[in-house]
């Protein structure tokens, strides 16, 4: 998706310091897990990951960092037999560069399911939701009464061409009177 995008910044000592700071204890990537506990317990005991409700079965960053390094930064599936082929000319060809597909997938067209369909025709904003098993998810579900489907109503009208019909189906509290169809009219 970003194969020809120039780097945001060049490799400088200050940039390296800033990136290292992201991973420092107490900084934004620190989920404050109890690191004095056994690594196994950090995975199996959810109480040790109290600030990590979306992923209680794994300690913060554990899998994500490994996948990020392997899948996006260092993976190079270009074999020596294929070195003569320009990877830019072949669809889906991996190159050893930071393609950001671990975050953006294949973009709004290639991976439409990870983009928020309610924002700008699903072109710009990632769809973010809590892990289905997390407490946060359950809290959110309780806050979403719109997902409760109400009674179905239907309204049937002739279409503009006068020869066809259209039926609007609505659900919930909408004040549209239900009209039972006379099937002979179809």
């Amino acid at each position, binding site marked *: 998706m970003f194969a020809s995008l120039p780097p945001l910044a060049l490799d400088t000592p200050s940039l390296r310091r800033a990136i290292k700071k992201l991973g420092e204890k107490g900084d934004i990537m620190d989920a404050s897990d109890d690191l004095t506990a056994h690594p196994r317990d950090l995975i199996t005991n959810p109480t040790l990951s109290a600030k990590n409700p979306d992923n209680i079965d794994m300690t913060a960053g554990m899998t994500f960092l490994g996948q990020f390094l392997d899948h996006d930064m260092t993976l190079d599936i270009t074999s020596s037999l294929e070195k003569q082929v320009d990877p830019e000319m072949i669809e889906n060809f991996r190159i050893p560069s930071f393609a950001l597909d671990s975050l953006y997938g294949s973009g709004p067209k290639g*991976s439409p399911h990870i983009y928020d369909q309610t924002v700008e025709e699903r072109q710009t904003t990632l769809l973010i939701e809590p892990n289905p098993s997390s407490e946060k998810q359950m809290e959110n579900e309780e806050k979403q009464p719109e997902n*409760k*489907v109400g009674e*179905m109503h239907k309204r049937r009208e002739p279409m*503009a061409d006068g020869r*066809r019909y259209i039926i*609007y189906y609505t659900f919930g509290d909408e004040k549209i009177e239900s009209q039972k169809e006379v099937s002979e009219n*179809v």
Partner: protein
Amino acid sequence: MSELRWNPLLGEWTVTATHRQDRTFFPPPGYCPLCPTELGGFPTEVPEPTYDIVVFENKFPSFQPNPPTLAIEGSELYPVRPAQGVCEVVVYTPEHNSSLAQQPASQIYKLMQVWQDRFNDLNNHDFVKYVFIFENKGEAVGVTLPHPHGQIYAYPFVPPRLAQKAKQCREHKEKTGVNLIANILEDERKDGRRIVAENESFTALVPFSARYPYELHIYPNAHAEGLTDFSSKQLRDLAAIFKQVLTAFDKLFTISFPYIMVMNNRPSDGANYDFFDFHVEFYPPMRTAMKLKFLAGSEAGAGMFINDTLPEEKAAELRSHIEAVIW
């Protein structure tokens, strides 16, 4: 022109629908006929600024309640009859850039209720002998309008594939005393390898003799001949398992997965169908992330499908992408 012409070699009807050659073909952005009509904007098929789910008669129908005059006279060898029926379009959502898989389970549950209502209405027409609910999704299966939608054809006869299934189901019941799909489910549960997802009311599986690599069927856990036999709870469970399998499809190759979805309800010809069970079938054309399965010589010419994969392995693949449903 639209009429039914008899194929004496196969013993089947073919419908001619020459007006469909002019149907809308990938309209430019802003001119989708299935989107809501915006104030002062392009008038679409739906003259409302928004909607929940909408159904209308197809502008380019293969079957019509008042079919046109026959274009050609029939003969003893070549019977011809009017293409009387109904063709409806079911628009799942006002969101143009979406899919059924991307809809929340609650919206799919609404759609189940709409489908149930449409089956009930169309089933009551004297001239309708079979109500066929289906969805073609993706360019790979010939879709010309990407807006999420499905179709319903109300046929004036029981189509051959359904007639064949009904025959098999009836003979099995006469022979064993057990409904065929109940028997299949019992065996599949004992084996377990081809089951993809299940809930209280439905089971999704890759069939033992799948024709397509990712073919998937959904069977009711208890006897039901058609959509109208289901309670609200069962429709909700059907919506839930739809959401699960459609999401799993999309996750397989991280693409919006193309498929043909067909619902198999009992025929509407008034006969007894207590040996028949409702079921849903998905026929995805993908055999790998980059390759399509085409219906070539053996499939199109001999009716003999060749599946390049093992259903047990494909079921395991799909099963690994099944997630809990969020309502």
